């Protein structure tokens, strides 16, 4: 696995500034970190899961610090509905009253940037720490599956394939050339911006191919996973008409 120093060294070499006279090491490291975070956000490549332990009478829970987007959540391996606040308000006007609706959580919504609200509010406290598979043994707890950012690059290596780190290098070079002052180069920043965007798009497409199903489902046209209406029922073509024998 490659590290932050590999990518910053390569970027500095290609910028023609191995001695960091124009772009300091800290600046390049910042661009690399930004690129890594952006790549994880845009491609949703890193996936993880954790228990957000139910606590009796508590509806709001702090999301993990590396949280990017929720994939799905389960309670006792049963999928939970991700619901909008507006929809929840329609279903239960007392949803914010923590003592009004309690029980086993059935739905949740992401409330702001770092908080998740369970509904109904859990009525029991559970402590589960380790994720165990398979989930045959009933784990009566809230498990969140989510897309995340990579671990801190100052202590850990990249968690992505090494060829993807080239994409991050292009991002760092694009940002370095774009910065006004010494080293600004409009032609090259546009070039590296185009390379970064192409690579990102390519990774997104590759991930899309991986995640979406190719299987054809009855009642749906094509092979996508989005639901479509089944075809409109029609009467047989001869219905109600006299057909010559």
């Amino acid at each position, binding site marked *: 696995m490659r590290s932050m120093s590999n990518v910053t060294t390569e970027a500095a070499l290609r910028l023609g500034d191995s001695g960091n006279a124009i772009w300091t090491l800290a600046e390049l490291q910042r661009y690399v970190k930004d690129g890594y975070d952006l790549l994880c956000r845009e491609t949703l490549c890193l996936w993880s899961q954790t228990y957000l332990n139910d606590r009796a009478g508590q509806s709001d829970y702090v999301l993990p610090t590396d949280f990017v987007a929720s994939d799905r959540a389960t309670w006792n391996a049963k999928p939970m509905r991700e619901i909008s606040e507006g929809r929840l308000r329609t279903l239960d006007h007392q949803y914010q009253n923590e003592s009004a609706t309690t029980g086993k959580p059935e739905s949740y919504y992401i409330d702001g940037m770092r908080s998740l609200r369970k509904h109904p509010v859990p009525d029991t406290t559970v402590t589960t720490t380790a994720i165990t598979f398979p989930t045959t043994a009933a784990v009566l707890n809230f498990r969140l599956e989510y897309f995340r950012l990579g671990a801190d690059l100052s202590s850990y290596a990249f968690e992505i394939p090494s060829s993807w780190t080239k994409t991050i290098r292009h991002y760092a070079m694009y940002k370095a050339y774009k910065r006004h002052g010494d080293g600004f180069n409009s032609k*090259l920043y546009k070039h590296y911006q185009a390379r970064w965007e192409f690579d990102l798009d390519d990774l997104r497409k590759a991930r899309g191919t991986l995640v979406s199903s190719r299987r054809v489902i009855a009642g749906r046209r094509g092979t996508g996973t989005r639901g479509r209406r089944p075809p409109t029922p029609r009467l047989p073509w001869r219905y109600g008409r006299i057909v010559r024998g």
Partner: protein
Amino acid sequence: MNFGDLQSEVFLRIEESESSPDYWALSEVKQALNEGWEDLARRTKWFKSSVMFALQDEVTYYSLLDHCPEEPICVDAIWDLSTERWFNHTSVKDLEVSSYYRWEAIGGSSINYFIRGALQLGVHPYPILSDSAHNSDMIKVYYTGIPFPLGPDDYSIPFRELELPLITYALYDLKGQEGEDTFALQLWAEYIEEANKVRSWVRGHYTRGIERRHRALDE
């Protein structure tokens, strides 16, 4: 052409002596060619590979990075050696809709695969190796990936179509490092044109071939 020939070609075009280069070291030329090798594989998806590994008892998820020797771009198909069948490619949403909603709790002989994030391979039902008709727990994963870097000089480039884009990319990379921006960007435009040709060529050969193979085996 082999890797050594490619290096000679690049040295010739940057007007350097291969035996005693002035400005560019041999390692830098090799690195530039390998950068192109990687970029071309990502752009054209020409490299297909496969790996066999054993499913573990009651384990749903497998890291593609840990199991595939070359870096994977995407999984094309999975063959189960014990049941001699292709796995179905599915998604979690489909499993929830079309299968039992607590699909994670179902164990048995795996018949479906899905991907979480970009690098986690999941199988469904989760394998129970003791109670099924398994005589082997091996699966073969066919995938598109990035080939290993070019190493020995006598390594032959598998297709003639790859040679020119590789040389052009190496020149682009070296000229870019040298600070000849305009020339480097001109070489980049040439490289893209050549890589697009290779991509169309690959699409015409490989992709159709694999789909045809799957259809034939399904029948």
